[in-house]
């Protein structure tokens, strides 16, 4: 058994050696003529503005957390898969409940929109007679409402 993993270690050593060797050979034969412009971070030819260590969308973080939970779930499924033929229906329902519980959390995240990457539609407050101010999504505009000549853009064009 240990010898089997020894072969994997051989693969690891060979891989690391191959990579290190080719990088080293490249280092020996390639030219090295740096200047300030070359060593600058690429930003479409402009002088880069600020550092790239900026705040980024925290959805990436939520994805990471979700991944952790599900990966552990999958890893727990594997030993069960190995022996499930021997332990019968009780094992099936136990695993079903386990998967279902995690699935509830997943459905909650999905419903909350944490896994939704689309740009949210703007919420516009609207005054409704007798009710007060309500948050409402903008209603869709009718397909053909007014004649084209009455549009303000065209009128300014005429005036100029």
């Amino acid at each position, binding site marked *: 058994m240990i010898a089997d993993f020894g*072969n994997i270690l051989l693969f690891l050593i060979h891989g690391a050696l191959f990579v290190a060797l*080719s990088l080293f050979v490249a280092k020996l034969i390639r*030219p090295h003529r740096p200047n300030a412009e070359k060593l600058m*971070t690429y930003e479409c030819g402009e002088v880069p503005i600020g550092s*790239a260590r900026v705040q*980024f969308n925290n959805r990436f973080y939520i994805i990471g957390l979700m991944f952790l939970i599900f990966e552990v779930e999958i890893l727990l499924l*594997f030993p069960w898969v190995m022996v*499930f033929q021997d332990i019968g229906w009780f094992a*099936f329902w136990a695993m079903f409940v386990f998967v279902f519980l995690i699935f509830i959390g997943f459905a909650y995240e999905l419903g909350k929109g944490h896994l939704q990457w689309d740009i949210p539609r703007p919420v516009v407050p609207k005054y409704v007679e007798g009710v007060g101010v309500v948050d409402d999504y903008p209603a869709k505009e009718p397909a053909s409402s007014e004649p084209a000549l009455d549009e303000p853009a065209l009128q300014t064009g005429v005036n100029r």
Partner: protein
Amino acid sequence: MAEAEVNSYVVLGAALFMLLNSAAICVYAERRIASFIQNRIGPNRVGPLGLFQPLADVVKLLLKEDVTPVQGFRTIHTIAPMIPVVTALLTVAVIPFGDGIYVTDINAGVLYLLAAASLGVYGVTLAGWASNSKYSLLGGLRAAAQMVSYELPLGMALASVVIFVGSLSVVDVAVAQENWWFVFLNPLGAVIFIIAAFAESNRTPFDLVEAEQELVGGFHTEYSSMKFGMFFLAEYMHVVINSMLITTFFFGSYHLPFAGYWLPEMSTTAKAILDITVFTGKTAFFIFLFIWVRWTIPRFKFNQVMSLGWSRLLPLSILNFIVIAAILFAINA
């Protein structure tokens, strides 16, 4: 015993050699097939039919000046390109190429494959972060989120295969497909696995990581010379390895379809040659599929990639797993 050990070292050497060369052949095949799909000629100058083009590419990469941005994190910037190549090489250790032709047979092979596959994320993400470029950072983050998301359906699809075998050894998975390939028993799992494999190897339609129209070069914007070459090599090695995995887990590994029913007894040598030919042929087909899809289907948007992974593939793969488990229970009970 001694003979078996010698045998496994021969396979080890052959596997390493084959994988590194197949990446080079894959680069040539990609450019050539791409040009045929787009009604061009493609590289045909270097050697007969342009076959030495990969060699010329390597020489060019070796001779290019290496530029490391001064604002970046130098050490991680150097280490990052090594990670995907080494992990890609590690993966091939447990894949059987024929009846009794494998480097090593560990009893946790499937878990090992999952582990080695997820290590590749580090290379891309660290490269993106260490470059200290905005394009690289976005590319690296996208890579992390995407590869992590598609690893879940990949793992569930693997679990729905292992359930038929009852063993985590990859060799046992291959042997179990002598009569029925798992693609016939578990077609939905096969589709999910293939889609997830495309996303894991960052190929079109999932190559958001290096979407050149919006991110220049993505995570390897700041890489040049042989360090870029390493990422390039790793990409094609991942294509080869994912083709091998699709073949091994769903398309019968080294078995011809329903081979157990009709294939006559053969001598060891003849069987070995047949096995390796069949395995290589299937792998070559899936490599072709990778290239074909790349030059036929446009790239997804990132929100589409994410919603496909989380709200379609993941519930579908869990459902697929539970249904298969229930059916197997019902049959056995």
